[in-house]
């Protein structure tokens, strides 16, 4: 009886994930090896179950890497991959530059203030992502609030073009992903022992030296975690480049979307997805290792 219950407990979530997570990936892989066709669904070959084993063999024989070769030949794709990685990298650095001082300020604030500050960082995270991205359209447009302000101040003579450029994409990413950077850094800085800083200062360090030689190295795990938490999802980002970016903003998430919904080329879209996943596996594995090492160090 107990064994049956345990079996049931394992089987239900396991089966659910197999069916709705792993099998779909298998299908993506399968279609990425197929050829596109003017049919419904728009690809060949299809698995002919009535033919049994022979049907399966026929399907396997028709598979090729044509779509992947196509990805390397057409400039659009590898440029989009490179530019996604580059945009993700640069915005991670920017988010770190903006996020670290905030986390540092929070950790130095008095203890009764910390929960409130923490809630203020988390609150935007619960607010719709789409709305937060949207809020920048009104600010950054040529007739937006920022340009109105700058023109009124006399800083500029003609409105700046920011919306629909990569600059708007960077602003949008830093804005929406900032909590992911701030929270892990704050978590490590909060645990930092103030006595260490006092010791450093007693031993002749200036306040800045103490910060640089004690605080920064000890904050490293939080910084690394924050960077991964921003970098990994941003590589596949779709909403921000399509709302704030322009026609020259190339990001692979948007390319995949267009390939699927506009060009209706399912095999190429699937191949794009497979390669994107392969690119992301490297940072994901690195992140996992770092987290494990961190956990072991804390034990």
């Amino acid at each position, binding site marked *: 009886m107990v064994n049956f219950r345990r079996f049931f407990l394992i089987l239900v979530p*396991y089966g659910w994930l197999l069916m709705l997570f792993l099998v779909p990936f298998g299908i993506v892989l399968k279609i990425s090896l197929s050829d596109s066709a003017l049919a419904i669904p728009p690809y060949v070959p299809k698995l002919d179950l009535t033919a049994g084993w022979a049907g399966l063999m026929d399907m396997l024989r028709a598979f090729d890497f044509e779509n992947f070769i196509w990805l390397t030949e057409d400039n659009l794709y590898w440029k989009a991959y490179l530019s996604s990685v580059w945009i993700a990298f640069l915005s991670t650095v920017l988010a770190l530059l903006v996020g670290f001082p905030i986390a540092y300020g929070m950790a130095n604030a008095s203890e009764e203030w910390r929960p409130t500050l923490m809630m203020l960082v988390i*609150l935007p995270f619960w607010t719709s992502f789409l709305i937060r991205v949207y809020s920048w359209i009104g600010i950054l447009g040529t007739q937006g609030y920022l340009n109105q302000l700058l023109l009124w101040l006399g800083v500029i003579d003609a409105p700046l073009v920011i919306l629909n450029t990569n600059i708007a994409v960077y602003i949008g990413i830093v804005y929406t992903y900032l909590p992911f950077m701030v929270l892990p850094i704050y978590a490590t800085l909060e645990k930092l022992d103030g006595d260490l800083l006092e010791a450093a200062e007693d031993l002749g360090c200036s306040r800045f030296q103490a910060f640089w030689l004690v605080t920064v190295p000890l904050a490293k795990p939080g910084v690394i975690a924050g960077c991964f938490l921003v970098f990994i999802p941003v590589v596949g980002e*779709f909403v921000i480049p399509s709302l704030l970016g322009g026609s020259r903003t190339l990001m692979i998430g948007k390319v995949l979307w267009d390939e699927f919904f506009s060009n209706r080329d399912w095999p190429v879209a699937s191949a794009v997805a497979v390669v994107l996943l392969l690119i992301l596996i490297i940072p994901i594995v690195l992140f996992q290792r770092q987290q494990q090492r961190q956990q072991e160090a804390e034990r």
Partner: protein
Amino acid sequence: MNKRFSWFNATSLTLGFAFLYLPILILVIYSFNESKLVTVWAGFSTKWYGELFQNEAFMDAAIVTLKVGVISSTIATVLGTMAAYVLVRGGRFFGRTLFSGMIYAPLVVPDVITGLSLLLLFISLGVDRGVTTIVLAHATFSMCYVSVVVSSRLVSFDQSLEEAALDLGCTPWDAFRSVTLPIIAPAVISGWLLAFTLSLDDLVIASFASGPSATTLPMKIFSAVRLGVSPEINALSTILIGIVTVGVVSTSIITKRTAVRRRMQEQAAVADR
């Protein structure tokens, strides 16, 4: 004030929170703008809220979104709690590594890939796409978040409590219901809330998983926003922001109060002894 709190800290906190909150604040203020031209202030008015509530397409989408959110997050909470229990207390079983991999993978796989793969699954199964398929899709990725939240709670509490209940003659189910569940309840509730928010927020996966028969609010907002800023969307955003703010602030006050009450009860119990 903490002695380490410097001018630099004060400045970076002020600028940081201004950066986080000004865009939202501007959005809220301009939702009460009389003018159709969203960047020109023409006096206070609530007329866009009225127009919003008369816009049937938005109202229908809101109902679909709420329905999907409630059902999918409930399924996700049940499945996610089960998965967390299996991961933390389940011991060894065949394919455990694969199982934990499948729990953590959806957290890092880009939405476009999850969406695409689910759509291809639904098509190859010949399922009609609509509310049901969005619910399935949302339940799948939310259950992973729920299971991470719940398992961190399960790891931290003392397993001997469960063992004591079993020794005292409870069946495993009774022990779970009367010992484990009350202890992990806060994590289960916050898991549900997280799943619900993720579902309300999702654009990409819902767009892939849904068919022509079902449109969620984010899909509606996205197609409207592509044409530029509109006062109706500002009004809608303000309502959503208001709901979230009230929800988050009241939950944090409640958790703080229960923590204080529990500490007082514990102290009273110690004093009685």
